[in-house]
C-alpha cells in the first residue's frame, strides 16, 4: 500500500511551512505604494452620528484620505446583504435592514464603522483616526435578547426589533402528544454568546489596476468565490471578471471568515478611490468587537414522554440574537441549521419549534463552529438528561430506548431531514465500554472519600453537514447553491495539480485531498499539488463551512478523477491497440484485461500532451473539471461521555476523562480526524466552562473585549481525549464520508453540563460553568 493511501494516518504535508514560519498569510503580503487603513469605530452602543469632522485628521502627517459613509454612498456602494431569506410564520420575508460598510445615519453597536483613515503607515493612520471628531447623539441601547422586542428600535425597517417569528413542525401533533403525555419535562436555558477568536485576525489588501480597470483583493476568507459573488452582485457592482480574490494561508476561521465584512469592502472601494493599494489588518481588540459572534440563544424546551419513557413530543421556543445587523448567513443559523436538528438521534414523532430572531445593539451573530446544530444539541441532550433524572432512568438507557434503530434508515424526521444511515447504539455501547461506565459508582465513592464531587455526562448528538443540496437550500431561502468544484490537471510529466473550491484554514486539505487523488489515480502523493483560495485560478466554487470540504469538495475531486480515468482509458486503449471496454485501471496502471500489457498513468498523461500517436476523435490534454452537488446532508453522529470532579471548596471543575466515539463514515486520514475531534471538543469545553461574550446591560460596552476577560480554553484545561470511531459509510457520496470538523463543538457542551449537574445533584446550571457558579451550587447542595 503506498504511503498516501486512504485510511492511513499521514502527517500533514502543510505543517512544515506552518511550523517553520514559512506560511504566507494576508498580512505577510505587501504591495508597492500601499496605504494602511484604520477604522474609526463607535464607542457607543447606539448613537446618531450628527457630524464627522475630518480636517484635523487630514492635516495629520502621512494621512492621504479620510472617508465616511456618504463618500461610499456617492459611489453607489450598497449594503452588505444577508444571503438567506427566511420566510416567517405569516409567509412574510424576514426584516433585512440595510448594513452599510460605513454608517450613514447612526452607530448600532460598539465597534460599528464610522470612518476610515488611510495613511502611509499604520501609526500615521492611527494618529489620524484619533483626530477624527465625531458628534454623537447617544440613544438608548439594548444588548439583551429578552428586552429586544419593544426595546429601543435599531432599524426603521424593524420597529419592534423583530427580524422574524418562524416556525417548523406540526404544532397540532405536538399539542396532541403533550395532552396524552405521562410525564413532561421542562427546561429553560441560555446558549451563551461566543467570540470566535481564530489565531489569525481578519485582514485585507485591495489593489486596483487602472490599466485593466480591475481589482485584486487578498482576504482572510473561507470562501473567496462566494465573497466575490457577494461583492460583485450585491455590494460594489464590480463585474466578477474584474475582481480577483485571493485567500492564501489562513490561520483559522471557525465560521467567522465566511462573511462579507465592512472592512474588506471599504479597502476594495478605497483602492480605486485613492489609486493606491489599501491594507488593513485587524488587531485583537477589533476582532473582539467586530468579528461576527456565535450562538446567543434563550430557549424554553419541553419533552413529553409516555409511561415507559418513550419520547412522544418535543416543543421548543427560542429567541435568537442577530446582533445589530444581519450578517451574511445569520438568518439561516437559528432556523434551518437549528430546528431541523431537534430530532437528534431519537424517534420523537412530533416536534414543533418557534424561533424569534431579534436585533440588539451588539456585534452581528452568525455561524460559528457547530452553528445551529450545536445550539440544537444543547437543549435536546440537556432535557433528555433531566428527563432521565426526573423519571429515575439511567441516562444511557433513556437514550437507547429512544434511538432510531439501524433498520429504520433512511429515516424521515418530523423536522424536515432524512437521515441516510447510522448506528447510534453502537457508538453508545463503545463509549460506555471505553469510559468503563460500570465502574463509575466506585470512582464516585472514591472521589467522595476525598471530599470531591464526581459526575458523568452523556451527549448523543447528530449533526447535518456536508452542506448542502442546492435544490433543498434554495427552497428554504438560500440565495446560493451549495455544490463544489474540482479541477484535476495532469501535467505532461505526470504530476497533478488539483484545483479545489474548498478552502483550507487549518483543516489539512493539502494532505487529505492528496491522499484521495494519490489513491484514486495511483500517483505518489509528492506528485500531487493542491491549489485553493484564488478566484483567478479555480473555477467558480463555494468554499469551506458546515463541514463540507471532504463530503462535497472531496466528492467533486473524486468525480474529476473519474473523468480522468475515463479519458485515460481511451488513450491507453489506443496505445495498447485494445478496445476501451477491455481496459482496466488499477493502482495507476491501465491494463488490457486478462493480459500483462499495460500503460502507466504517467505514460498516458505524457501521451495526452505529446499526442503523436493518439486517438483521432479525442481532444489532447488530461485536465478535467467536475462539479458536485450533494444529494443530501451527511449525518455524523456519536456519543461523547465525560467525567468530572468538582472541588466543592472552590467550585473548580476538573475534567478527568473524555471519551468521544463518532461515526464519520469512511475516514481518509485518522490523524487529521482525531485532531479535528480534539479541537472541536476543546471549543465545546470553552463554551461550557470558560467562554462568554458579555455586554454591559447599561452601557452596551463589550466587557469581555480582551484575553484578560474572555477566557479561551488552554491545554491545561483539557484531559487527554480518548477517541473511538464506528463507521457507517455515507450512503450518497462517492467517498462514503460525512465530515468531522464541527462535532466536538456540538457534542461537548451538553456532555459537560450533564456531568457537572450530575456531580452537583442538580437539574441545570447555565454555561459557562464558572468556578463561582459551581461553588454556590455546591454550597446549596451541601446544605440540603
Amino acid at each position, binding site marked *: 500500500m503506498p504511503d498516501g493511501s486512504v485510511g492511513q494516518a499521514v502527517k500533514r504535508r502543510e505543517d512544515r511551512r506552518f511550523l517553520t514560519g514559512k506560511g504566507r498569510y494576508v498580512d505577510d503580503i505587501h504591495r508597492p505604494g500601499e496605504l494602511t487603513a484604520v477604522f474609526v469605530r463607535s464607542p457607543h452602543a447606539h448613537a446618531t452620528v450628527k457630524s464627522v469632522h475630518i480636517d484635523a485628521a487630514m492635516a495629520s502627517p502621512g494621512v492621504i484620505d479620510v472617508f465616511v459613509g456618504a463618500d461610499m454612498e456617492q459611489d453607489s456602494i450598497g449594503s452588505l446583504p444577508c444571503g438567506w431569506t427566511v420566510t416567517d410564520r405569516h409567509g412574510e420575508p424576514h426584516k433585512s435592514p440595510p448594513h452599510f460598510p460605513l454608517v450613514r445615519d447612526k452607530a448600532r453597536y460598539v465597534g460599528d464603522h464610522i470612518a476610515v483613515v488611510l495613511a502611509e503607515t499604520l501609526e500615521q493612520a492611527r494618529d489620524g483616526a484619533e483626530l477624527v471628531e465625531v458628534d454623537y447623539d447617544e440613544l438608548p441601547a439594548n444588548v439583551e435578547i429578552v428586552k429586544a422586542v419593544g426595546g429601543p428600535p435599531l432599524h426603521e425597517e424593524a420597529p419592534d426589533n423583530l427580524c422574524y417569528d418562524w416556525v417548523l413542525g406540526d404544532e397540532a401533533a405536538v399539542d396532541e402528544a403533550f395532552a396524552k403525555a405521562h410525564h413532561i419535562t421542562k427546561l429553560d436555558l441560555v446558549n451563551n454568546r461566543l467570540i470566535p477568536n481564530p489565531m489569525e485576525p481578519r485582514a485585507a489588501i485591495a489593489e486596483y489596476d487602472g490599466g485593466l480597470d480591475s481589482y485584486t483583493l487578498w482576504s482572510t476568507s473561507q470562501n473567496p468565490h462566494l465573497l466575490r459573488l457577494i461583492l460583485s452582485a450585491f455590494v460594489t457592482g464590480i463585474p466578477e471578471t474584474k475582481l480577483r480574490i485571493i485567500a492564501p494561508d489562513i490561520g483559522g476561521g471557525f465560521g467567522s471568515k465566511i462573511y462579507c465584512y465592512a472592512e474588506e469592502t471599504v479597502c476594495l472601494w478605497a483602492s480605486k478611490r485613492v489609486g493606491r493599494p489599501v491594507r488593513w489588518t485587524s488587531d485583537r481588540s477589533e476582532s473582539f468587537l467586530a468579528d461576527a459572534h456565535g450562538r446567543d440563544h434563550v430557549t424554553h424546551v419541553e419533552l413529553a414522554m409516555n409511561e415507559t419513557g418513550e419520547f412522544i413530543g418535543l416543543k421548543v421556543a427560542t429567541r435568537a440574537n442577530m446582533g445589530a445587523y444581519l450578517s451574511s448567513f445569520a438568518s439561516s443559523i437559528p432556523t434551518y441549521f437549528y430546528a431541523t436538528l431537534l430530532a437528534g438521534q431519537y424517534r420523537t414523532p412530533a416536534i414543533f419549534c418557534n424561533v424569534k430572531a431579534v436585533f440588539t445593539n451588539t456585534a452581528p451573530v452568525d455561524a460559528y463552529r457547530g452553528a445551529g446544530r450545536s445550539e440544537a444539541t444543547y437543549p435536546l441532550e440537556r432535557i433528555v438528561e433531566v428527563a432521565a433524572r426526573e423519571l429515575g432512568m439511567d441516562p444511557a438507557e433513556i437514550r437507547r430506548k429512544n434511538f432510531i434503530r439501524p433498520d429504520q434508515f433512511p429515516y424521515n424526521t418530523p423536522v424536515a431531514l432524512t437521515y441516510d444511515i447510522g448506528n447510534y447504539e453502537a457508538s453508545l455501547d463503545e463509549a460506555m465500554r471505553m469510559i468503563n461506565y460500570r465502574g463509575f459508582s466506585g470512582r464516585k465513592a472514591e472521589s467522595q472519600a476525598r471530599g470531591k464531587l464526581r459526575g458523568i455526562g452523556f451527549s448523543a448528538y447528530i449533526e447535518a453537514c456536508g452542506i448542502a443540496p442546492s435544490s433543498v437550500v434554495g427552497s428554504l431561502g438560500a440565495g446560493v447553491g451549495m455544490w463544489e468544484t474540482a479541477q484535476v490537471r495532469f501535467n505532461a510529466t505526470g504530476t497533478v495539480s488539483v484545483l479545489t473550491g474548498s478552502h483550507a484554514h487549518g483543516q489539512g486539505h493539502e494532505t487529505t485531498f492528496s491522499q484521495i487523488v494519490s489513491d484514486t489515480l495511483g500517483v505518489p502523493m509528492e506528485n500531487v499539488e493542491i491549489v485553493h483560495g484564488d478566484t483567478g485560478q479555480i473555477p467558480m466554487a463555494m468554499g469551506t463551512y458546515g463541514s463540507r470540504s471532504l463530503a462535497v469538495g472531496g466528492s467533486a475531486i473524486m468525480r474529476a478523477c473519474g473523468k480522468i480515468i475515463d479519458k485515460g482509458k481511451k488513450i491507453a486503449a489506443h496505445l495498447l491497440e485494445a478496445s476501451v471496454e477491455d481496459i482496466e485501471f488499477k493502482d495507476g496502471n491501465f491494463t488490457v484485461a486478462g493480459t500483462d500489457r499495460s500503460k502507466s498513468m504517467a505514460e498516458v498523461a505524457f501521451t495526452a500532451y505529446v499526442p503523436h500517436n493518439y486517438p483521432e476523435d479525442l481532444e489532447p490534454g488530461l485536465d478535467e473539471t467536475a462539479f458536485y452537488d450533494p444529494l443530501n446532508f451527511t449525518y455524523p453522529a456519536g456519543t461523547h461521555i465525560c467525567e468530572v470532579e468538582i472541588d466543592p471548596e472552590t467550585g473548580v471543575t476538573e475534567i478527568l476523562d473524555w471519551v468521544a466515539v463518532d461515526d464519520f463514515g469512511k475516514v481518509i486520514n485518522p490523524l487529521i480526524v482525531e485532531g479535528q475531534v480534539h479541537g472541536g471538543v476543546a471549543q465545546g469545553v470553552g463554551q461550557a466552562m470558560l467562554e462568554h461574550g458579555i455586554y454591559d446591560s447599561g452601557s452596551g460596552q463589550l*466587557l469581555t473585549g480582551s484575553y*484578560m*476577560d474572555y477566557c479561551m480554553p488552554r491545554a491545561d484545561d483539557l484531559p487527554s481525549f480518548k477517541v473511538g470511531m464506528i463507521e457507517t459509510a455515507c450512503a450518497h457520496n462517492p467517498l462514503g464520508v460525512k465530515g468531522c470538523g464541527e462535532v466536538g463543538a456540538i457534542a461537548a457542551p451538553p456532555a459537560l453540563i450533564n456531568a457537572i449537574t450530575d456531580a452537583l445533584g442538580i437539574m441545570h446550571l447555565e454555561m459557562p460553568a464558572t*468556578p463561582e457558579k459551581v461553588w454556590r451550587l455546591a454550597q446549596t447542595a451541601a446544605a440540603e
Partner: protein
Amino acid sequence: MHDFGYHRPTTLADAAAALESAEDGKLMAGGQTMIPTLKQRLAQPSDIVDLGAVEALTGIREEGGALAIGAMTTHAEVAASDLVKARIPALANLAGGIGDPQVRHRGTIGGSIANNDPAADYPAGCVGLGATIHTGKRQIAADDFFTGLFETALEENEIVTAVSFPLPGQAAYAKFPNPASRYAIVGVMVAQTGDSVRVAVTGAGPCVFRDRAIEAALSSNFSASAVGTSSADESALNSDIHASAEYRKHLIGVMAKRAVAAAGG
C-alpha cells in the same frame, strides 16, 4: 504607539539623570505592562528609560539572613535560582507561577512591585515575607510600600534597586488564578517565622493587604484547620464578572488553608 525618546543607561546614576531630564519620563523594567500599554496608546510618555542594561540591578545574593534580589531579576531567574529554591522555596514557586513563560522571561520583580497591579503575585510575596524594598535613596518596609491601587510609596523618579527577603521558618503561596488572565483572583502568601505569622492577600482587594484574623488564628496554632475565615471587609473587596466579593472573601480562607498545608502546617 506614540513616539517617545528611548534611553538605555548602564548605570543607576545615568538612569536617574535621564529620568530627571525628561519632560514626562517613565522607567521600563521588563516592559510586560508598559509595552502593551504603549501599544494600545493608553500612555504617552515623552521618554522611556530602559533599565535592562543597568548591571547594578541584577543578581540574587544571600546576606545577613536575607535574600537580596536585584530589581531587574526576571521571574524565571527567581523561579530557577537554586539559592531561592533552597532558602525560600515559596518565593521560587510564586515566581514560577506568574503569567506564562514569555512573561516570566521578561518581567522583573522591580517592575512588578513598582507597578503594583492589584492582582500581581509579588506584592503578596513581599508583604507576606516581610520584605524590604531598596531604592536609590532609601529602604522601605513592604508593609509601607504598597499604598493603593497601582500606587506605591515611591517618590517621583525614585528607582527600586533590590528587594530583600528575610528567610522565613515556613512559608507557602497559594493562588486561585483568573481562568482568563491567569492573574490572581486571590493569592495568599503565608509565612511563619518564630512566633510571627504573616498572611498577605493579593487579587482580592484594590491593593495587597494582611489578613489579621487569619494571622491571629495561625499565631496560636499554625495548622490548616486553624485558619478560619478572612476578616476582610467584603464591601472593600473587588467584584467583577469573574468573581464576586463574597466569593473572593471565601477564597482567601481556602487559599490560606492550602498555603498553610503546603508550608507544612
